[in-house]
């Protein structure tokens, strides 16, 4: 072994040490990357669960404002069975939500009667019968319905549907259940059409082809194959249409004619749960009983929408799982 060998070996050792250090450096860097990555991932996770946080805090904050009323003045029987909503009554203050609830039910019912058959019919026509070019145009027009803001719908109710109803039915004022129902139908039709179309499209092609192979006509395939297979999606579409109608505020406030009563015909004006909050919250003193009562209505609305959405998500979710398995 001579000198040059030794120095070479030393060089090799120091090289090895260098590369060792390099590896350490790389590992340290990598650890930094990993720790900063952990931070980012935690942040992303927090953003991910924010929706749960928001839903929860919506409930908490509304409950917090409504709680004093719920714990003292509130009576279940009065709230659901009395038709007298008189927060500023001089002789007697009453918080009966039944007339408001009936108003919401009546308006929603009328709108569903119009929007479900029309929406489903249109969805079938668009997805099954329509020539492709017409389909694009039709879809754009129906989707543009969804883009019109609700206050503009209210304006349309006052300036266009109102005179139309007065002229057709010969009544003094055209702001009533029917008017609100028509407006709500227009507003929920895009929801119903697009969701039903999704449901129709998710029916496996093999089902449809099997139907045609048996010699069925198009209509028979639609009625016997596509609709039964898409049933769950269709029910979800109707449910979400109902949810839209129940929750709509400004358009209904402007179209329904502002009168608290149990309606006996579609030509009578009414007032819904949502419209009551919008109309009265501004003039009720903060923290007062009336104010808390309005938050209680809000709580009821939140619960209704939660139930509707939960059911719809169950229906849609099950359908997906069924497709996988």
């Amino acid at each position: 072994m001579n000198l040059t060998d030794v120095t070479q070996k030393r060089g090799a050792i120091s090289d090895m040490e260098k590369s060792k250090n390099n590896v350490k450096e790389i590992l340290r860097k990598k650890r930094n990357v990993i720790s900063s990555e952990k931070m980012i991932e935690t942040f992303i996770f927090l953003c991910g669960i924010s929706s749960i946080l928001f839903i929860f805090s919506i409930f908490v904050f509304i409950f917090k404002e409504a709680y004093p009323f719920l714990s003292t003045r509130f009576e279940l029987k009065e709230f659901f069975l009395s038709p007298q909503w008189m927060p500023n009554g001089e002789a007697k203050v009453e918080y009966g939500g039944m007339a408001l609830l009936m108003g919401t039910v009546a308006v929603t019912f009328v709108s569903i009667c119009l929007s479900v058959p029309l929406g489903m019919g249109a969805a079938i026509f668009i997805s099954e019968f329509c020539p492709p070019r017409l389909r694009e145009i039709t879809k754009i027009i129906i989707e543009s319905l969804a883009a019109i803001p609700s206050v503009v719908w209210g304006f349309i109710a006052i300036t266009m549907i109102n005179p139309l109803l007065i002229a057709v039915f010969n009544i003094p004022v055209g702001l009533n259940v029917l008017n609100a129902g028509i407006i709500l139908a227009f507003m929920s039709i895009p929801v119903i059409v697009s969701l039903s179309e999704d449901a129709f499209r998710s029916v496996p092609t093999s089902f449809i082809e099997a139907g045609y192979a048996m010699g069925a006509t198009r209509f028979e395939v639609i009625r016997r194959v596509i609709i039964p297979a898409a049933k769950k999606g269709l029910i979800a579409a109707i449910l979400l249409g109902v949810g839209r109608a129940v929750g709509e505020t400004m358009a209904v406030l402007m179209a329904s004619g502002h009168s608290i009563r149990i309606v006996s015909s579609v030509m009578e004006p009414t007032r819904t749960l949502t419209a009551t909050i919008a109309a009265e919250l501004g003039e009720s003193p903060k923290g007062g009983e009336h104010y808390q009562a309005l938050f209680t209505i809000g709580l009821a609305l939140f619960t209704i929408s939660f139930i509707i959405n939960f059911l719809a998500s169950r229906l849609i979710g099950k359908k997906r799982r069924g497709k996988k398995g």
Partner: protein
Amino acid sequence: MFQQNELIKKKYVTERLVKAILGLMTFALIIPTLLILGTLVVKGAPAISFDFIFTYPEKGMTAGGIFPALVGTIWLVVISLLLTCPLGIMAAIYLSEYAPDNKLTRMINLAILNLAGVPSIVHALFGLGAFVLFFKFGTSILAASCTLAVMNLPVVIASTRESLQSVPQSFRMASLNCGASRWQTIRYVVLPNSISGILTGVIFSVSRAAGETAPILFTGAAFYLPFLPSDVFSQCMALSMHLFTISTQVVGVPDSYPYATALVLIGVVFLVNTISVGFRYYFRKHRKW
């Protein structure tokens, strides 16, 4: 050949009948829509002028323009966007890239669906209880924007998630195989390839924020202000609120004034929507995969 017996003939008659009925139903939807939009344009367009857009309302909001309302709407939309976008996009990244298929994820999905379905007036109550009173923002642009931001969150999450998931899985695999970490993959591969779709959804949510009335009713919008908002803690007017006021609360408004306001509002919403659709179309055409 197959013989056309009575039964088959009958079947084809029903078929044609059904098709006609369904077609009629579709047209029963389309014609009123076109009539409504047409009426708005015909009655509103003549009143729209440079002065209408750039002057203040006069004479108790029976004349003049809509300038402060337009500016207020822009304030609300921009601030709510600044709040929703980061949160919504991050949430979508979590759901599309990280979330395992477990109970928590299902709960998040349910929460998003519910958040989208909560009535707008309930959002307003939440905004009032949380932002105006609890966080003490007062009735201000900030409180109203926060309320709008919560409302728009599910829209942004849903559209972002969709565009993230449209990036092919192989892109992610390739990046991970090169030794990139998960976040690096997202940051340098997934996001750049889906940014167009994300933007489309964000722009779409603008149109929703611009049109909403109920959530800003008690949280930040004023009936009438003779000046423009100076910072996020002042109140503002808004186009949608303005239309509500002049069509229900103020007497003696000439017919053309609310029509023109409605037309401007719809114009803004449709313009934004068209941009978003155009964007989507453009990027679909220029997609690399």
